[in-house]
């Protein structure tokens, strides 16, 4: 096990420390680079992921003085920057999902029990999911994936994208409705579930 420093300060403390000691910013990289990498690897694949993560931190570093220290957690801020950078790769992303429509993705370790519990094979649903994601407008896809793949809350997503929480909810609902439609489910009762 790797021993972390006993007291782990808030991200905001690191950002403000980096105003006078730029090295402090590298600690944020240590905390979140792997998380951001995993997220980009899902949306764009591993090839551009490394560079985009580096770019995200460079942009964040250059804007560190405008960081709002009221937010202790820097993840939404970093995800927000990353989302903008991903938007430059929209074609790559769409092509990736379209490719997944045709070719099955590499086998993923899912226990049989999980699949039974899900009542549907996630593997089998992948072409539909990929198709739905490719067809979504970028702003709805950003919200849906920050929540589903980035594990952000609604509030954090709102902060990342600099939009009201209500807008997050409506975009999420729209996105989910289209995903469910692609999966062949038209139960309107689910629409209000958030």
């Amino acid at each position, binding site marked *: 096990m790797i*021993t972390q420093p006993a007291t782990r300060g808030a991200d905001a403390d690191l950002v403000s420390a980096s105003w006078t000691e730029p090295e402090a910013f590298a600690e944020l990289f240590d905390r979140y680079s792997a998380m951001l990498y995993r997220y980009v690897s899902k949306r764009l694949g591993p090839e551009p992921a490394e560079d985009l993560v580096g770019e995200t931190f460079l942009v964040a570093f250059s804007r560190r003085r405008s960081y709002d220290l009221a937010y202790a957690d820097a993840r939404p801020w970093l995800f927000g920057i990353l989302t903008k950078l991903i938007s430059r790769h929209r074609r790559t992303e769409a092509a990736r999902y379209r490719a997944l429509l045709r070719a099955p993705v590499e086998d993923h370790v899912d226990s049989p029990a999980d699949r039974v519990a899900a009542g549907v094979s996630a593997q089998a649903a992948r072409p539909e999911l990929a198709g739905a994601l490719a067809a979504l407008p970028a702003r709805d896809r950003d919200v849906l994936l920050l929540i589903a793949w980035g594990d952000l809350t609604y509030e954090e997503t709102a902060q990342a994208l600099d939009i009201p929480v209500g807008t997050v909810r409506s975009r999420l609902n729209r996105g989910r409705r289209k995903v469910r439609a692609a999966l062949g489910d038209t139960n309107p009762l689910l629409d209000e579930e958030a």
Partner: protein
Amino acid sequence: MDDMKLLRDFGAALEHEPPATLARQRNRLTGARPRRRRVGLLVTGLAAVATAAAVAVPTLVLRGSVAPPTGARPAKVVTGALNVLLVGTDSEVGSKRFRKGARTDTILLVHLPADRKEITAVNIPRDSIVQIPRCGSVPARKSMINSAFDQGGLTCTVKTIETLTDVRIDHMVEVDFLAFKEVVNALGGVQVTMKQPVNDPKSKLRLPAGTSILNGEQALGYMRLRNYGDGSDMQRIKRQQVLLRAMMAKAKKMLTDPGKVSAFLGVVGKSIKADEDFDMETMVDLATSLNDSRLPTFLTVPWVPSPDDPHRVVWKQPDAEQLFARFR
């Protein structure tokens, strides 16, 4: 059917783990000079980083860099082989125990052959009386090898060893008290077995006989412990080798994936000094090349007691010369 669950599963299937090379991106932040990117270095099985944990630590954001010696240096003969000088100093800058100057209490020359299979680490006894060449404004003199550092820094230690051995030193790394403690703590402690209990006020080490797991502070005490056994530096070197070997074995076991490696390097890299060329990318390259290596073999420079002072040693010739000839 839960669409969010399906979507998450879908994402999990698409997800990739960050490669060790991701740490290069950190260098962009910290202003390390850009280096060409080599293709095909996506590292798997980085267990090997640990094989040279001692060598592996000086990456990422280093606390400072050390300049290589100027002037004539031994030529590099074997392509692909690598010699790394690793020194442990008693520098405690900023601590209460701060003393004047710093000495290299542990000097280790690590040789990695081109095929990286049989790594050798040679301890150079700190009490070795040797000819120290002129370093900057300090004239040449005959003295204990650990004084080269005090007078001329690591650069002078490198110059001294290159002059004595005719071995070209490719990289150099300096670990001080604080850095050593951090490395041990980042490894989660390291296990040693003592035949006799220890209660030594000088190194502040108290240990029962038998097996103990040492934290950073205790491991440092163990490294420094002299008042034990016959009290000689030679026995201390033996103890140090046992500890370093245990640290490397632990690192090799622990650093099994690139994420753990970069986290480890992130923690310990900050407190270590190395030469400018020994940066993250070089490190990752080196680690990759160590996949099939065994733990290093530890040796000590062959020596005899100094004719002028029984508490000091001089290198035994031609044995020492023969040992270093293998490194050229």
